């Protein structure tokens, strides 16, 4: 009898925990998703409906329109921003991956005098925020003649992406058993072959995680382009959307929201497909040590 009571107590306890969990999750989903939902609703409304104060702003009452998206693509520099962002991001990802894979291979396997200090230094560099360095970099890129050109981003973004990517690649490479590279060495493979044929294929999940990180840093970067780029033709999506689409006395909220959503779409789509790799890469430091 006693056992029965405790069992049903346990059961209701678990049920209660389940209900509270769902309650919290629903509350958080509302909190986390209402701003993007509102952005979407605004971007699909006509200007007259946006300007109406009496109607419910959270729903579309007078029909869906794509006019903001069309005018965004045809009347603004949005496509230029998009192209610039794609060029910068692809180059930054490529540079980041080459530099960090080489360094991670070296630091995890070969070791040289000072390599331990360097590994610590990389971790510390990862903790240096961009907001600490944008003012001296403003002077430095000025000397290099890169001010007001999106090429400046190809130069400076790797400082934000490489440290973390190297750090996670060191983690993934270190977890590859040493027997594997000994076998490859005995077969006469040199370091480049070993890197390409053994390390990169085995550490592919880490590579994907690092690529997504570099992509995110580059796509979402805001401070550096805001500080270093002034011409509309050189701007990237974040700064272009924030600075050029809100000019004038009347805010074009519909167009602004359409721009923000379209500019956010590539990272959101990328994450939808590769989220698991990214989370595994990000938390590997947390769970493995």
């Amino acid at each position: 009898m006693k056992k029965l009571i405790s069992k049903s107590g346990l059961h209701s306890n678990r049920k209660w925990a389940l209900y509270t969990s769902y309650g919290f999750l629903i509350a958080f989903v509302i909190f986390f998703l209402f701003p993007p939902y509102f952005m979407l609703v605004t971007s699909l409304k006509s200007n007259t409906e946006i300007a109406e104060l009496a109607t419910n702003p959270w729903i579309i009452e007078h029909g869906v329109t794509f006019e903001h998206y069309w005018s965004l693509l045809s009347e603004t520099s949005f496509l230029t921003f998009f192209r610039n962002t794609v060029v910068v991001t692809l180059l930054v990802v490529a540079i980041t991956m080459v530099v960090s894979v080489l360094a991670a291979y070296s630091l995890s396997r070969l070791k040289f005098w000072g390599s331990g200090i360097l590994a610590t230094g990389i971790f510390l560099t990862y903790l240096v925020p961009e907001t600490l360095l944008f003012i001296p970099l403003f002077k430095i890129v000025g000397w290099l003649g890169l001010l007001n050109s999106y090429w400046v981003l190809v130069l400076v973004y790797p400082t934000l992406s490489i440290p973390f990517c190297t750090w996670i690649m060191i983690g993934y490479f270190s977890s590859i058993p040493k027997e594997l590279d000994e076998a490859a060495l005995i077969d006469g493979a040199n370091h480049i072959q070993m890197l390409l044929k053994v390390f990169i294929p085995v550490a592919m999940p880490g590579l994907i995680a690092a690529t997504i990180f570099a992509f995110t840093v580059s796509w979402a970067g805001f401070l550096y382009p805001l500080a270093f780029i002034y011409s509309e033709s050189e701007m990237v999506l974040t700064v272009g959307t924030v600075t050029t689409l809100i000019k004038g006395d009347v805010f074009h909220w519909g167009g602004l929201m359409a721009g923000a959503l379209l500019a956010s779409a590539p990272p959101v789509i990328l994450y939808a497909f590769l989220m698991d790799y990214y989370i595994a890469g990000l938390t590997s430091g947390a769970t493995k040590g």
Partner: protein
Amino acid sequence: MSKLKRKYSNGVRSSSFFIWLRQRSTIAFIMCVPLLLIVIGLVAYPFLYSIFLSTLNKAETEFVGIGNYLFLFKRETFWLVVKQSIIFALVAVFFKALIGFIAAHSINTIPSKGQRKWRGALLIPWVIPPALSTLGWWWLFEPTYSALNWILTEFALPTIPWLSETFWARFAVILVNVWFGAPFFLIMYLAALKSIPEHLYEAASIDGASSIQKLFHITLPMMRNIIAITVLFSIIVTFANFDIVRVLTQGGPLNTTHLFSTYAFRVGIESGDIPLGASVSLFMFPILAILAFIILRNVRERALNS
């Protein structure tokens, strides 16, 4: 085996084991050269150059020593920035950690087949570039059309001057930062929760422990380390945040929401006083250095333990 023989019959390569060793470390060093160039040229050098810049006058023609720092100490705005940066970082990180923990714990409680879906939905704020999602918040806070105020009016509550009153503007920038940053805590905590061995909970259940007791005697102690690292890391990132305040309030009203980064941007880039701007952002350094030191010690300890 034959390849191995060929390798050692090759006179140049096998002349000395030590040459090979030296070659190996040379190769290793060469592979790190691109990284070293970037870290030295674009992180270490700019940092040192920033210290030098901060000792010059506005025209960068004269050495003024610590003049810029002394000037800042006398400015009321600077002390506002110090105060607001600390409030912003501590309050935002506290709520991010709290929401992240509750969300992670909730996801971990529900049946595992639904977990991925909920996690995906809750990560969306973190995936949108913050400068762009803040535009959406800005529109939500817009004085005339504020959709949040519309809801308040529907419930017959007074409307809120979101971005024009100091308290509410500070509330707004913290709210947006919590909204953006809580998912990061969620994934870190979720990974940590999954790594706690199930048998600890089973043993506790047999001993008749309640879920609250399990939370305080198993979950939290097991997660102490990861909570510490995530919080410290987030304090750095939040303290140095730029995008949200820049887009939402630009430091207003009356400079009361400025952080070090946005104030440095205002002074250094917009007003053209580069040395003073450099001094402002360098004030972040001692705090960041202390936090980085603690994180590093933590990470090292974990590496030694595992």
